[in-house]
């Protein structure tokens, strides 16, 4: 494959991962547990957009908007119905992690019940542009641009708005946030809403770039964890860099695999290998602080 | 000298928790370590017992260099510690906890299946020893209770018991009577006194009053250094000690 095409594909992959990973990392940072049900939030978002786009026949843009809002609401719902109760019971992060698996199972199979196990597609036009000898679809251009726009909006939110700063404050030091008059439970709702919403949009991107299946989220959740850990858990900017690094690693990796005549079916394994190497070599990630003993 | 700490330093993110601490402790003595919050007492204990590696300096135990050995190896050489906040095993009973602490336990996998007889024998011996210690500490009647079901004072007794169970040459006690009522606190120290002929104790404690009655030597720490040391009488008369506490 041509270099240009590889670069384009890498940027697209990175753009899909980046929002998902940011969503995952802000929940991880504040709630301190690995939320495996994030996978199904991704899938849920993709199918919500499917309703709007295919069932209602509206533009996918509105689908993405609906995905953001509804998946954000679902994130809040999982917290209210399960995680908040576990927090109140004094359950540890291990219980929360296991519970998130349970939530994931319920969501995924409910989606499969509703839309069936087979792949479906959005109703979108696929115009293709040629640049520097590579090709890129109109949809992929949107994916890249919207990701960048959302990253900028999030950056603005985290650094300029009261809410964004309060979210950082709560994740940095919840006790002190409370002592500053911040209603931390209310901030948590926002964390779930934004984390879930970003997962939803990520799901729409993935669905638009490939297809929709009930396993859509599960297929990329480990890559998302790889991004989060590579970037340093809870690091916004780390996650951004790591998402694009992983995008490049996967696409170039696949090209190397096929050069070595190894099955490209190992594509998902590239993220896993990176994940394992990072955890062993530098568990704090590229932007993370070293953990206190 | 059973323990020799030479000029150790330890910093956390630019703050010197230990700033050149040297301590020498003789066999079969009880030494006290006092000082205000944040003076570095627990850091010293952690460094000696292998839970933290010092940035500089050496620690010798029984003539052997133990600087930077991992905790389990330090423990195997005969130095056992307790923790400030009693850290008990939630899912285990008092007796089980005692057995865990024993050094003679056959805790490999091989005896589980192939040398059952010997395992049961050691187990019997260990249980007997555990019961004796629990009896000595007057909590034998609680042996089948979960360790976490004990009262605060009893938990402190249990953690002393677990330390004794390991039959160490030296015991580091981190606040053995914090939160314990005075009568029980005195009792705990009386138990320690009775063990003195068998081993050496280093006790970190806030309650200076009680140390005065039981210690041979008291070290006073402030801001990561030893600022005074001597017999309880000497320390008690030492003006700098009161100053350290009142923040001169």
């Amino acid at each position, binding site marked *: 494959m041509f270099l240009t095409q590889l670069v384009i594909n890498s940027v697209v992959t990175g753009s899909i991962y980046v929002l998902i990973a940011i969503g995952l990392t802000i929940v991880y940072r504040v709630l301190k547990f690995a939320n495996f049900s994030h996978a199904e939030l991704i899938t849920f978002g993709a199918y919500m957009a499917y309703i709007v786009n295919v069932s209602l026949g509206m533009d996918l843009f509105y689908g993405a908007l609906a995905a953001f809002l509804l998946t954000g609401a679902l994130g809040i719902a999982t917290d209210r119905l399960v995680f908040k109760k576990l927090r109140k019971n004094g359950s540890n992060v291990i219980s929360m992690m296991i519970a998130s698996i349970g939530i994931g199972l319920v969501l995924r199979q409910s989606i499969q019940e509703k839309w069936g196990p087979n792949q479906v597609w959005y109703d979108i036009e696929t115009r293709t542009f040629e640049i520097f000898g590579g090709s890129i679809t109109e949809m992929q251009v949107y994916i890249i641009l919207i990701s960048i726009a959302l990253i900028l909006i999030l950056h603005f939110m985290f650094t300029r708005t*009261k809410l964004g*700063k*309060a979210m*950082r*404050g709560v994740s*940095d*030091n919840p*006790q*002190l*946030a*409370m*002592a*500053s*008059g*911040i*209603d*931390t439970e209310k901030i948590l709702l926002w964390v779930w809403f934004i984390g879930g919403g970003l997962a939803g949009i990520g799901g729409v991107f993935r669905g638009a770039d490939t297809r929709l299946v009930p396993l859509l989220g599960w297929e990329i959740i480990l890559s998302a964890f790889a991004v989060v850990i590579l970037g340093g858990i809870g690091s916004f900017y780390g996650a951004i860099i790591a998402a694009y690094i992983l995008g490049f690693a996967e696409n170039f990796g696949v090209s190397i695999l096929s050069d070595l005549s190894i099955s490209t079916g190992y594509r998902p394994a590239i993220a896993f290998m990176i994940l394992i190497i990072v955890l062993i070599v530098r568990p704090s990630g590229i932007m993370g602080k070293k953990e206190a003993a | 000298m059973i323990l020799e700490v030479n000029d150790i330093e330890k910093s956390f993110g630019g*703050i010197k928790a230990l700033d050149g601490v040297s301590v020498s402790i003789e066999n079969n003595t009880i030494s006290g370590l006092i000082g*205000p*919050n*944040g003076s570095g007492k627990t850091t010293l204990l952690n460094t000696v017992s292998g839970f933290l590696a010092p940035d500089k300096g050496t620690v010798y135990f029984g003539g052997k260099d133990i600087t930077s050995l991992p905790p389990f190896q330090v423990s195997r050489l005969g130095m056992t510690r307790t923790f400030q906040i009693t850290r008990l095993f939630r899912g285990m009973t008092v007796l089980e906890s005692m057995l865990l602490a024993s050094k003679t336990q056959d805790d490999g996998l091989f005896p589980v299946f192939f040398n059952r007889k010997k395992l049961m024998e050691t187990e019997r011996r260990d249980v007997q020893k555990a019961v004796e210690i629990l009896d000595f500490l007057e909590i034998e009647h609680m042996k089948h209770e979960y360790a976490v079901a004990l*009262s*605060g004072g009893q938990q402190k007794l249990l953690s002393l018991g677990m330390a004794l169970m390991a039959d160490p040459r030296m015991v580091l006690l981190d*606040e053995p009577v*914090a*939160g314990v009522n*005075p009568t029980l606190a005195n009792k705990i120290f009386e138990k320690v006194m009775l063990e003195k002929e068998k081993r050496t104790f280093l006790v970190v404690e*806030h*309650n*200076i*009053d*009680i140390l005065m009655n039981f210690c041979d030597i008291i070290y006073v720490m402030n801001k990561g250094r030893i600022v005074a040391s001597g017999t309880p009488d000497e320390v008690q008369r030492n003006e700098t*000690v*009161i100053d350290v*506490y*009142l*923040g*001169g």
Partner: protein
Amino acid sequence: MLSVENVVSGYGETTVVNDVSINVAPGEIVVIIGPNGCGKSTLLKTIFGLVRPGSGKIAFNGEDITGAKPFELVRKGMGFVPQTENVFASLSVMENLEMGGYTIRAPDLEEIFRMFPVLEEKKKERASSLSGGERQMLAMARALMTRPKLLLLDEPSAGLAPKMVEVVMEKIKELREGDSSVLIIEQNAKSALSIADRGYIMVMGKKVFEGKTHEILDHKEIGRLYLGKRGG
């Protein structure tokens, strides 16, 4: 302003604060001193709603606040500076102050920067890069953003060099001029007493002495009391 009546408090089944009553009048600096583990820190956390009292009553400005949540107390005009982890380490100095002023519309930064000029110089730096003394300043400044009527300080001198302790104590004195009451708990008794109006001594979870600061300083037994003799 603040009245604490017969408060019993602790963690789980352990009672750490045993039947303690104290009060703070408007414009007063009151200090609670006592050796490690005497329960003074738990008492402060109980007042600020971080620990639920087992029994007793806490009132602030005549209003019963027993069991109120910290963020509610902040809105009622209380400020709290914890002993450790008292700044948002990953946030900038400016953002720390904004967190402090979270509950109010237009925080008055000028006043804060007048009091703590060093914070203005370093307002863009991360709190984690500040020195120990600067952090303590920031911690106080954060709590002062809401112009609290009562400021609770948990060992403000802990871990500071003697010179820095002096500076911090000076700043606390300035607060009274701004009409705030201050309740400090301190291990560093001498320096705290030098700025306070009144003081309490706690030993083993109980209040064992109260009086004007000079009475405490002149108290013959204070040194001994402090070194662990039980009360009375």
